[in-house]
């Protein structure tokens, strides 16, 4: 995810800014740009939301997380940034005014910093249009098929008859 991110134009734009942030302590606090990496972690749940909200991945599909990122409870977020732009995303993240999300996030709102990081993540990954190539169900199917294949292969090693070869061997010796 990170490596592929390097390829995006947007990220190339961010880089000098990030460098500046490093040079000028205190600048980052004022920065309007979030950290896409942290955003990704928040999205995937490897970094908890400060107020205890659920990570996005629990309900939403997003390319970049492989087969694990195919949750389908909420809408697919692949095109979020392209469709709504930076402001749209920021607005959505601030209110999260969808019935099923409200129940979770009304009492556990995203912090300003988290919103920025998530926005940056969505912006950075905006060009990943491809839906995951293989769904979880596909993976399971593949697993089952390969287990059966292994079983069939092992089955080739089945004990061959014991008695008949003995007879054949004697017949061969006698040239019958």
């Amino acid at each position, binding site marked *: 995810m990170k490596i592929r991110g390097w390829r995006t134009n947007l990220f190339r734009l961010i880089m000098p800014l990030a460098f500046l942030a490093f040079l000028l302590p205190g600048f980052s606090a004022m920065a309007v740009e979030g950290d896409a990496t942290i955003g990704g972690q928040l999205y995937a749940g490897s970094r908890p939301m400060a107020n205890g909200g659920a990570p996005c991945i629990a309900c939403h599909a997003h390319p970049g997380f492989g087969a694990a990122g195919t949750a389908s409870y909420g809408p697919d977020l692949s095109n979020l940034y392209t469709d709504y732009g930076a402001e749209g995303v920021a607005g959505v993240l601030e209110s999260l005014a969808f019935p099923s999300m409200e129940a979770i996030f009304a009492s556990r709102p995203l912090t300003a910093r988290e919103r920025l990081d998530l926005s940056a993540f969505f912006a950075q990954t905006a060009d990943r249009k491809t839906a995951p190539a293989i769904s979880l169900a596909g993976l399971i199917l593949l697993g089952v098929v390969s287990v059966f294949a292994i079983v069939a292969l092992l089955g080739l090693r089945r*004990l061959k008859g*014991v008695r*008949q070869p003995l007879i054949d061997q004697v017949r061969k010796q006698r040239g019958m």
Partner: protein
Amino acid sequence: MDIRAQVSSVFHLDKCIGCHTCSIACKNLWTDRRGNEYMWWNNVETKPGTGYPTKWEDQEKYNGGWERVGTQLRLKQGGKAATIGKIFHNPDLPTMDDYYEPFTYKYADLTNAPAGTDQPTARAVSMVSGKPMKIEAGPNWDDDLSGSTVYAANDPGVIELSAEQQQQLFTIEKMVMFHLPRICNHCSNPACVASCPSGAIYKRGEDGIVLINQDKCRGWRMCVSACPYKKTYYGWSSGKSEKCILCFPRQEAGEAPACFHACVGRIRYLGVLLYDADKIEETAMKADGELAAAQREMILDPFDPQVLAAARKGGMAEQIIKAAQKSPVYKFVKEWGIALPLHPEFRTLPMLFYVPPLLPVLSTEHQGTQKLADDFFTSLEQARLPLMYLAGLFAGGNEEEVKAVYRRLIAVRIQRRAETVGDMAEAEVAKARELAGLDSKTLDAIYRMTSLTRIKERIQVPPMLREQAVEAGMDPEEYKQSMGFGSRKAPKRRW
């Protein structure tokens, strides 16, 4: 000490005449059902020979029994993970041809054939497909050395022998054989029990009989491959595995098991042994050659007050202790030391013991008449049935074990000859006794037990106290109606 009782047996191979009465008694009683035609809970094979199923002793092929892995004992066919891996395709099962394809004859053709110039014949038909078949194998196909270029020559024990020793066995005029009747050994470290994924096989607490719960068995057949003696069988109609039940319903009624009762040669002895269950693992871990001795060690003296105190503390009934004190098996195995387990190196600690055959060993150069005691024991080495072969069968390859047994058996004969024929010098007899390490009274007792005893002495069925046990738990009348070998219920689903 954890003292357990085991209904155990001794087969005296010198006395077996290979009549198969035992097999038939068992077949008629228990396995005369569709789908079970091929299974012989009791079979009699000829040695040397490959037996039934073909080459069952060859664990390189069948992967039965236990093996030592480091300090652990492991099923040769693999542990739990391997069992799950093989659950739908067990690669170690014998094929139908290795047992034999069961057959019958079209007897009706003999009487129904239209009149003609030929004698009517009854053709053989397969009991599996119903089609005419060529009979090429049977449960005792190598009986009395028939087909021995195939079967005797491929006996796993014979293959182990040197070319010279094989020659000794197979020189046409001198060819030797003996019969080996086999039933389930009701092992104290049963591989069948350990292998069952359904937990359907168990060893009865009070008498050590190993049984397959027909309600719990799901037909995985792991026991069929795990038992190194191939003494569990899959029932093709019931979809369950079955094995020798040591006629427990007969024993509970005080009767001898059917094969014991029917035995024409009177080779079969039955009685209770007390053993220390805490020693099982340690015993099974011993080196191949030490296993027979270690197993003897595990069996305890039923007169030792310490043993008795421990047995009583463990809740053993007085009747069982009394039965153990009268057990002929204890005498054969421990007191006299003339009975050995079959293939102890499979490490299942079989609880059926064999008196190895002396006859083909002795009928060598001297046409059965022996001169000096010294001669006896030197001639043992040149015996026609190589000692190594017998040691491979009964002592994990340890020839000393077999020799010790033969010294005792020979001493019995010398003493009897001195008494009845009177052509033996007293010094000879004394020497034989000394070599055997047994006194004259014991030798006499062996003679009596092996040749004169009646069935009640040979077969000491212990009081199994089942009725009392049932009464304690439920109405005996209800028990009687709901139990029995024939009950078949759908297995309880566990999900």
